[in-house]
Every structure is written in C-alpha cells, then in structure tokens.
C-alpha cells in the first residue's frame, strides 16, 4: 500500500507557524498565513499548539456534500482528497461539513482550498524545524498512532492519579 499521510506530533510543535507561511508561499506565491492550507490551533494559556491539516478521510464528508464534484479523491496520487479550483463554486458546504475545521475559503480566489500534499512533497514537512509534521506511509502510521495514543493515555492516567 503506497498511501501516505501527514502526521502531526503536537508535543513537538512550538507554534512558530512556519508551516502556514511556506504553505501559502508554495500555493499562492504570497507570504500570507491566512491563505495557508494548514492552520495552527493554539491554546495560548498553556502553550499547546496543534497544526491542523486535512486528514484526507476514508469517508470524506467534503466529497459527499460537494455539489459540483470539485472536491474529489485521487486514488492514483496517495489517495488524497483535493479540490479542483476550476470546478469549485465557493458554496463553502465542504467547510461546514468537515469536522476537522478544514477546507478554507480563499477570499482572493473566491474558492475553497485544501491541503493537496503539495503534489507529493509537503512543504510544511520540509520546513518544520522541529519535525512536528511528518509525511509517512499510512500503514506505518497506524501502529505509531496506536502507540502514541496508548502512551498519552498512560501519561494522563499517571497525572490523574498524582
């Protein structure tokens, strides 16, 4: 299976927002984080930062609700979910449907945009200094995710027990 996915390690993220910057430069040519396909969600009071990118879900709500099929899956390219900007009508139904706060409405182009893995070479991964975002094989990430979730749960339980 050659499907690859973006994996975020929230513990490593420092909230520098370099990923937002390089994403917007790569996709739009402008150094404008508001046009980026990745957004850093922050819990400032406790210093928790979480870069949110598209999960290219197996059962993608954005694909289901798109009225023009602009939002579609490309099985030949890492099974990614992409939006064809030439077909998008800018109805923003996909934004409301996505539970992960993804796609974004590009106010300049008047269409919805989302992560497309930068055609196989995600710039957010290449430029993340602390390696908080990685681009790995999907079958590898399942084990890593399970291990990570188990570790997190163990940590939380330890903290809860004092």
């Amino acid at each position: 299976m050659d499907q690859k996915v973006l994996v975020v390690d929230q513990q490593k993220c420092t909230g520098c927002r370099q990923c937002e910057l390089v994403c917007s430069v790569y996709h739009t040519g402008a150094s404008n984080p508001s046009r980026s396909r990745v957004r850093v969600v922050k819990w400032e009071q406790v210093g928790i930062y979480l870069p949110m990118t598209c999960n290219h879900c197996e059962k993608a709500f954005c694909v289901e609700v798109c009225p023009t099929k602009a939002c579609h899956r490309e099985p030949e390219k890492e099974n990614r979910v992409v939006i064809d900007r030439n077909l998008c009508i800018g109805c923003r139904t996909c934004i409301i449907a996505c539970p992960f706060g993804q796609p974004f409405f590009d106010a300049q182009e008047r269409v919805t945009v989302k992560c497309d893995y930068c055609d196989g070479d995600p710039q957010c991964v290449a430029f993340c200094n602390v390696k908080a975002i990685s681009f790995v094989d999907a079958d590898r990430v399942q084990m890593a995710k399970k291990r990570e979730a188990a570790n997190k749960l163990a940590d939380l339980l330890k903290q809860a027990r004092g």
Partner: protein
Amino acid sequence: MGTESVQPIRSAKYFRPQQEWKEIIAIYLYLAGMGAGSFIIGILVHWMGAELNPLSIPFIELFGVRLDLAKFPILWGPIIVSIGAPFLIFDLGIKWRFMYACLNPRTSWVARGFIILSIFIVLGLLILAKSLFPFKWLYPESGLWLIPEGIAFAFAFGTALYTGILLKATKSVPLWNTHLLPLLFLASALSTGSMSIILSTLGTGLLSYNSEGMKVLMIGEQICVVLEGIVLYLFLSRRYRASEQGKDSVRLLMTGKLRYVFWQGIILLGFVFPIVLEWISKYYHNSALLFIAGLSLLTGGFFLRLGVLHAGIKDQIPMQRLMEIQYDMKRVH
C-alpha cells in the same frame, strides 16, 4: 488573520458557531420556505373553490391584454421563491458557476435543491400565468391543469422540506443533523405561508375579514403555528440531549449571544404576538391588528432560520477533547 485561538473552557462565552452561512442564506431559506408555504395554502384555497371577491382587485392591462388578477393574491408564492433563489447564488464565491451545480443533480443536496426549486418555480409561474392571462387557447377550465398543479403542489412541499434538508445534509453540525429540522422548517413554511395568504387576500379584498373562507384560513394558520411551536420544542429538547455540541448550540440560542434572536425574534414575534394579537383582533373584530400579527409572524419566521443558522456549532474532534483534558490537567497542577 492570526492563528486560531481556541478556548478550552466549555462556557457559553467561548462557543464557536459556524461562520460560513449567514444572513444571505437565512434570507434564501426564509423566502424559499415562505413562498412554497404560501403556494401550498393558495393552491388548497384554489382547489377548495373558496368564494373569492375578484371585483375588489383593480384591472391591469399588459400589452393590450387585460390581466385577470382574481387568483394572483393566492398564487404568488413562486414569485417569492424566485426572488429568494438568487440569494443562494449571491452567497457563492464565484456566482456564475452555479450552473455547475445544476449540471450535477445527483451529487449533493445543494445540487438537488437547484433542481427542486427550478421545477417548482417553472411550474408555479406557469400556473400563475395561466390564472393571469385570459387566453382561451390555454383552456383554463380544463381538468388537465390539475396535473401541473398537483406536481407543483408536491414540489412546493419539496421546496419547504428542502430548506431543512440542506442544513441536515452537512452532518457535522449536531443542531442541524436531525429529521426534525426539515419538519420544523416545513411547519414554519406553512404558518408563514398561510399568514401571507391571509394578508394578501385581506389586503386586496379578495376575502373579507368576516367571510367563511377567512375563518377557515385563520384556523388553519393557528393550527400551523401551534404545530410549529411543538416541533420547535421537540427539536430543541432532542438536540440538547443529542451531543455536547448540540447542547452548546441550544444554550447559545437560549441563553448565549443569540438569546435576543431566540426570545424576542422567534418566541415573541413568531409565536406570542401573533397568537395574542389574533385573539384580540377576533374579539374586537379589528382587521388592523391582524395585519400587525401577520407582519410579526412573518418576521418571526425569518428569525427562526437566522437563529438556527447562527447557532450551528460543529462536532468536536477527539483531538480537541484531548487538548481540553490536558489543559485541565495543567491547570490543576
């Protein structure tokens, strides 16, 4: 625009409802619902052959043809829907591309909506045109007209229901993800539609205040308002228990930032004022009060759509919940 700052404390102060669909979509939902509701009631009045008084309507000539306005005050619903439909197009990022949605009818409810509304508008306007133009070659008395009327009647129901289905189909907003929402919008479409027919027939003198037809219409409208109230109660109570975000949406609507929209816009204008004023107008035989009650009910119908749209809070992703737990841990230690 900076990074997205999220408040980990679950308080009505920090609720983050969806920001994508706002007033323009509320206007679209309202006009489509009210227009479809008024057509449903109007065609029922037409089918039942209520005693109308067309003499009270002034004559209008268009290109030398004297228009027959006798049925216009009960069949104008498709005009309202055709005024409302462009609001959905105004809200699109690239407006001219709405044609793409029309060309892909099976893809989603937005696309199906274009088809449902288009069929209703075309058939509804055809029936309205038949009633306006006194051409004999249209055979206005022919029983065959019952076929397009019946289809338009069914599509009017479809249009009224569709306004709720459109929101329900987005799935990730728990407040909207219920069968009760299309039902609520249908009930609201029927109550606002019947009230708009009362106002138009009363205003044009097609039905007098004391006529039998008006009495039946008013009873029907009051039943619709009561039914709408029951569905609204069921909708809110079920959504409150559905999920955390459903509960947050109901709290946002009833006690949060949208409380004025809910209590003053939806409850007072949409339910209390119309019922009380109609009762007083009946008691004193005062038709002016009925007009005020009607305008109040119609305004309340708009606020219902606006409130439901603005209170839509998305489902929380598991990661966000994990963050909340971590935040609470850090605060404790």
